[in-house]
């Protein structure tokens, strides 16, 4: 049996807009992946803990609250601390261009803004799992 790709989709922070996260979860499922969806209002600690227990290949974080600079790099940092830096992190949501550069510098592998074709996101996670 080939190794299944497992992805964690999580929403850090306090905004309750999870439509985007669900659309992505569904697209990944339809691409044959196993998606662990953890729901709203997760702390970076919760997210990293779940990623480790679920042994995922990558994490997709959705942020629409504007708190991305506070929360997203923290996830990468905690993964490193837990010796799980091989789990890649991508982000999606409303994130200004100047922050995209900073996030990438902080170790976020990709940032998907509004209007990104789902195929592109699926492809990112597929190659992230290799």
């Amino acid at each position, binding site marked *: *049996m080939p190794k299944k790709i497992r992805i964690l989709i999580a929403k850090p922070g306090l905004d309750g807009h999870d439509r985007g996260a669900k659309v992505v979860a569904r697209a990944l499922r339809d691409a044959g*992946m196993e998606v662990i969806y953890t729901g709203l209002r997760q*702390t970076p600690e919760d997210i990293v803990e779940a990623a480790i227990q679920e*042994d995922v290949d990558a994490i997709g974080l959705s942020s629409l609250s504007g708190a991305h600079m506070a929360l997203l790099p923290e996830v990468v940092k905690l993964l490193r601390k837990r010796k799980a830096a091989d789990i890649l992190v991508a982000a999606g949501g409303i994130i200004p261009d100047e922050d995209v550069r900073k996030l990438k510098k902080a170790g976020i592998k990709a940032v998907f803004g509004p209007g990104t074709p789902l195929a592109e996101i699926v492809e990112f996670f597929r190659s992230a799992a290799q």
Partner: protein
Amino acid sequence: MKIVDQLREGDKRAAAKLISMIEDDDPGATAALAEIFPHTGKAHIVGLTGPPGVGKSSLINRLVREYRERSKKVGVVAVDPTSPFTGGAVLGDRIRMADTGSDPGVFIRSMATRGHSGGLALATFDAVKVLDAYGMDIVFVETVGAGQSEVDIASRAHTTVVVQMPQSGDSVQALKAGILEIGDIYVVNKMDLGGGDTMASNLDFMLEERQGWRPPVVQTAALDGRGTKELADALTKHYRFLKRGPLWRGREADRARKELFESMRHLLAETFSDDTAGIGFEETVGAIVARKTDPRTAARKLLKGLKLPR
């Protein structure tokens, strides 16, 4: 094996990786499982089953907290269906278990049903063994109780909990085969909805003592935590009843019998799905299509010259 040593030392990541190896049918999984097997058999395994949306995950979330307060380490294996069309799955049971957060004494794993050749129960209970060897005192296995394989999983636990909710069908629904026979404990969840008392007394009326155990009906509301303590007490009571009673050895033998049989079937299925075994599986398929032989005769013939994978 290194991964087993790490697991025994309490490395969460090692436990998680080992479960993935089992799920992916990794060749190393068999050796690792052999190594952890002597360290298993310590955890109380509780199966929870019931229709989708009845509140199983929320109930487990409450139970996890209750058992943490009782200083027990808790594992959860939550099984959700794989799409038969794409092979993908969305596993959402963690949503309802979010408030256990990063508690080091809790390990929650979501599993998709996948297309397990040797039966889903085998992979699920191998994952349970990992959590058992990892040092968990109690492990919950959650399945959607809609089909035979789920009932099979639930009945493989020490204690099987059947979860129902009010306003979900009349008393005849409960008479349907399976429901009344598999549970050691019955739960009417969502008592906050109203109508739960009738449901509970209907259930209670129909349950009978089996081998010295009369299944209790526990009323809960996972929403506000009502009944959680009573349910945890009922679980402990049932486990004690089993462990101290005459049924324990028989049940253990039953479980071992099922696992041995399933492991044999798994090996066979692996042999056939992997045509490198060179037994002429595909040629036989052609012969059946051409009506030169029939499936039953061909099966006997193929099994005669069978070589198992190493």
